[in-house]
């Protein structure tokens, strides 16, 4: 690099030399250049990077309003056009660790720069923030400051140069990264099976993911006065798929009118979904989205009304991020159109 990396450093009131517990309510302030441990970083970075500013904030100030303060601090940091942010190290300190995590996550997200914090493995902030910032392991107390500064500086310089830090130098982020092994998967499976049979220690190549719990919406108070919105992930579109909703790995969903007089089986619709044989559904699209059955329920007063639009995508290998985004967008659109009680009738394949 032709010029040293610009680093903004975050510290709490104690390491920032404002005061002790009595100053835990100190608001965020910024000062030029390094402060306290920042001087040790300056030495360790040896001219390849410089701490252009230090932001100091009280631990209680942060814990009372973490997101708000972190956003303020991100704005303060932005003014210095940093290449990187370093927070702490906070070692095992709980409030300080959480503050470092919060600030690192906010700055990373707002400024799009790499952010690092130094934390001991016992610090609760590790699991909460590990996927949103680079967290470097440290000893439990400031007695290991020297080693922590050296380790954090090493990772900071690598990140600043656009290199991925070596495995083991930071807490894993739960990101699955590609690798090519010497042996094919079948041979690795045989090795793993042999180890299991010999009761030797084995390590899975895929730690099981955990799924977030999605609480269901409360039931409709009164079905007969509710609007029912039809939604499908079966790939139902107008004939010709004019908006080109992909049959696999869809990146979009469609919103199409439900004409009071039209019928899904009238030839102006089609199904296009890579995950199942579309032929039987194309023969009668009411069997994908049962408009005929819902119309009967509407006539009989079992449901209040069918919404004037339906929502559709093809749910084949849809990435989870896209699926979540479609769901949020569809919910928002429904709320814009329907103000009373609305229920969704969702068909899946």
């Amino acid at each position, binding site marked *: 690099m032709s010029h040293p990396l610009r680093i903004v450093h975050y510290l709490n009131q104690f390491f920032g030399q404002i005061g002790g517990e009595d100053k835990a309510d100190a608001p965020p302030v910024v000062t030029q250049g390094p402060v306290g441990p920042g001087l040790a970083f300056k030495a360790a970075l040896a001219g390849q990077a410089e701490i252009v500013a230090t932001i100091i904030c009280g631990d209680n100030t942060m814990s009372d309003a973490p997101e708000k303060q972190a956003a303020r601090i991100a704005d303060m940091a932005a003014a210095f056009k940093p290449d990187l942010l370093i927070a702490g190290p906070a070692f095992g300190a709980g409030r300080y660790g959480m503050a470092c995590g919060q600030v690192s996550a906010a700055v990373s997200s707002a400024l799009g720069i790499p952010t690092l914090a130094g934390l001991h493995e016992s610090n609760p902030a590790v699991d909460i923030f590990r996927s949103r910032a680079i967290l470097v392991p440290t000893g439990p107390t400031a007695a290991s400051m020297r080693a922590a500064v050296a380790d954090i500086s090493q990772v900071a310089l690598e990140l600043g140069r656009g290199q991925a830090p070596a495995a083991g130098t930071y807490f894993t*982020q739960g990101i*699955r990264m590609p*690798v090519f092994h*010497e042996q094919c*998967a079948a041979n690795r*499976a045989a090795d793993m099976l042999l180890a299991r*049979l010999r009761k030797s220690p084995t390590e899975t190549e895929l730690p099981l993911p955990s799924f977030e719990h999605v609480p269901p919406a409360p039931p409709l108070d009164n079905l007969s006065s509710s609007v029912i919105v039809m939604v499908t992930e079966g790939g139902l579109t107008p004939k010709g798929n004019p908006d080109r909703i992909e049959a696999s790995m869809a990146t979009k969903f469609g919103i199409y009118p439900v004409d009071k007089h039209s019928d899904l089986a009238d030839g102006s619709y089609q199904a296009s979904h890579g995950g*199942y044989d579309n032929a039987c559904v194309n023969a009668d699209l009411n069997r994908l989205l049962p408009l005929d059955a819902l119309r009967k329920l509407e006539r009989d007063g079992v449901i209040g009304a069918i919404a004037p639009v339906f929502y559709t995508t093809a749910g084949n290998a849809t990435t989870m991020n896209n699926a979540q985004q479609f769901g949020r967008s569809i919910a928002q659109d429904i709320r814009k159109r329907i103000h009373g009680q609305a229920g969704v009738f969702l068909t899946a394949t």
Partner: protein
Amino acid sequence: MRLTLHNHKAAALALGDSTRWDGKTLLIGERDLAAFFPEGLGLHLDELRTIAPGSQTRIGPVLDVAQIRHSEQGPAYPGLTGPAETQHCRTVHILDNAAVCLVSNLPGVQEGILDMASRWSPLAALHMLVCKIRVAPGTNPDEADAHMRLFLYRVCEFLGSLLTNFPAKASEEFVYPAHKPSGDIPPGDMLPRVGAVYFIQSQGRLRRTYYLGEAADALQPMPIHPLSPLCGSITSGNYVMPSNKTCTLIHQRAPVIRALLARDGKDWNVSGVLLANEASTRDEKSRTAQILADMAKDLRLDGVIINQEGGGNADMDVMLTCAAMEKQGIACVLIVNETAGPDGRTPSLTETTPEAVSIVSAGNNEMLASLPAADAFIGYPMSILPENTLKAVDMPLTRLLASANQLGFGRYSCVTR
């Protein structure tokens, strides 16, 4: 039973006026292959092309890749090019570093690319004979598929029949069982008993896998002879996502069975291969898992390798089976790929079970691979390559043939960072 595979190697494939194998070059006579092509069924053999590994050539939509092979004692493709039996199969000749690739505009298949310059598919290391077949509009897709696959196997068997004239570069011998009968061994010296739970996916039209030529849609779990897949008993007509589909060639290579047999009689006794279909309903999946667990218990298996085909709903089959078997004290190692998102941050599986503690990962399907610009494209227009079929492009691995194969064929995997 003793099975010998003679693995021949080609220096090149080439097209010509006649078909000849001289121990180095396989010359392929276009007229000879055309003689196998079914006429008057709405199919047209548009082109044959030979492609060397490493060529900057993209091929698609790919339906299947199959081995050039010949069996001295019966059909190379049992149930398809001859009777549905493998019990006489003793000597098979294979052109091991080559294959025949079927490309078609068949409607209703998931589009897939084989990029011969990309490291993402292990199949790109093979010399390819590409058969490009056009299906006329209005042709019944099921029938078109059946005829094209049969053409593919006939071509493979015909070319394979030439291999016997020259000695193979290398041969492999499989003796099953390699272990002594249990009556001859003191109880304390018994090796653990292991097997494979061989899941194939057969879920309806254009989503089928075939055992001895018969679609496995209604297959109930059953034991098969461990050497039977090496004799060509399993073929693929499963046009799901190309990274998730196990090509016929990969079934023929049988990586899991090879890995188990390599240690037969030494570290363990291979005591069963259980073939099962991934059914499409929850109830059938659950029933299959219970039946497999009962069979494994009856075979007194101590451990199994369970593979998968497909993804999404297919995660449930391996997880239910793993749970049922682990609860019976049978150690299970699973081979599955992941849906961890383009950034590697989303959950890798659709379904899990706490008993799945031993998983081998065949990599993240949703990772974006960068395909370099190509010099040539062989195939038909694809929606996944809309503007320019030769341009450098980023493509999720799902669209690259065999890039995350769950029969354990490849070396691509993932680690957590």
